[in-house]
C-alpha cells in the first residue's frame, strides 16, 4: 500500500467495553509501533514489534492494553474494559528492517484512530 492505514478512523465506545484498533503497515516494513496521542500527555510509546522478535511492551499503561501482530504484518491493539482516560488518538507507525549498523530507519505514521470513551 501507499502508506500506513488504520481503522476505524473514529471509535466511540462506552466505559467498560472492549475495543480493537487495527493497523496495516507499509508492505515490506518489518517494524511496527503503536503510540498514543492525548491532550496534556503528548505522544507516548505503547508497544513495538520487530520481525519475529518478542515485542517491546514497556510502554503499555496497564494490563488492559495488549497488541498482536499476525504474520508479521497487520497489528491489532486491544483495550479491555475501556476507561475515560483511554480517550486519545492511537497512532501506528512502521519502518523497514533496522540494520544495526545504521541504527534507525524512518518511521512512517498512519492517520490514527480517535477513540472516545463515554
Amino acid at each position, binding site marked *: 500500500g501507499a*502508506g500506513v492505514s488504520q481503522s476505524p478512523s473514529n471509535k466511540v465506545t462506552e466505559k467498560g467495553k472492549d475495543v480493537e484498533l487495527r493497523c496495516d503497515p507499509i508492505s515490506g516494513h518489518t*517494524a511496527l*509501533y503503536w*503510540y498514543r496521542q492525548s491532550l496534556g*500527555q*503528548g*505522544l*507516548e*510509546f505503547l508497544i*513495538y514489534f*520487530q520481525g519475529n522478535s518478542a515485542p*517491546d511492551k514497556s*510502554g503499555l499503561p496497564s494490563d488492559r492494553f495488549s497488541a498482536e501482530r499476525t504474520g508479521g504484518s497487520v497489528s491489532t491493539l486491544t483495550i479491555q474494559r475501556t476507561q475515560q482516560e483511554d480517550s486519545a488518538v492511537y*497512532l501506528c*507507525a512502521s519502518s523497514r528492517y*533496522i*540494520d*544495526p549498523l*545504521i*541504527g*534507525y530507519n*524512518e*518511521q512512517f*505514521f*498512519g*492517520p*490514527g484512530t480517535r477513540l472516545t470513551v463515554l
Partner: protein
Amino acid sequence: AQSVSQHNHHVILSEAASLELGCNYSYGGTVNLFWYVQYPGQHLQLLLKYFSGDPLVKGIKGFEAEFIKSKFSFNLRKPSVQWSDTAEYFCAVTPGQAGTALIFGKGTTLSVSS
C-alpha cells in the same frame, strides 16, 4: 528516564518572521534526533533528522535544525515562516541503538498569521 522538553507550547508569528523552536533531551549517550510536523487534519510527517555527521541538518520546506551535543539541544529554525507552516511540531529522540521507539516532546503549536 529519557525525556524530551519543548520549551514553547504555543508560538504565534506573522508571515516572514523567523522561527526557532527549542528542544532539549535528557540522555547521555549517542542519540538520533528528529523533528516531526503535523499539519491540521494530516498525518505526522518527518521534517528532518540527525543521525551523525554535520550537526546542522536541513529538512523539507526550508527548515533546519542544529544539534549541539554539549547543550543536549536540537533546535528547529526557519528564517522566514509562511502561513502554510501553521502546524504542530514535535521533537523526538531515540537512543543510538537499533529498534527503539521514538520519545516525543509534548509539541509546539505554531500559528502563523498572514
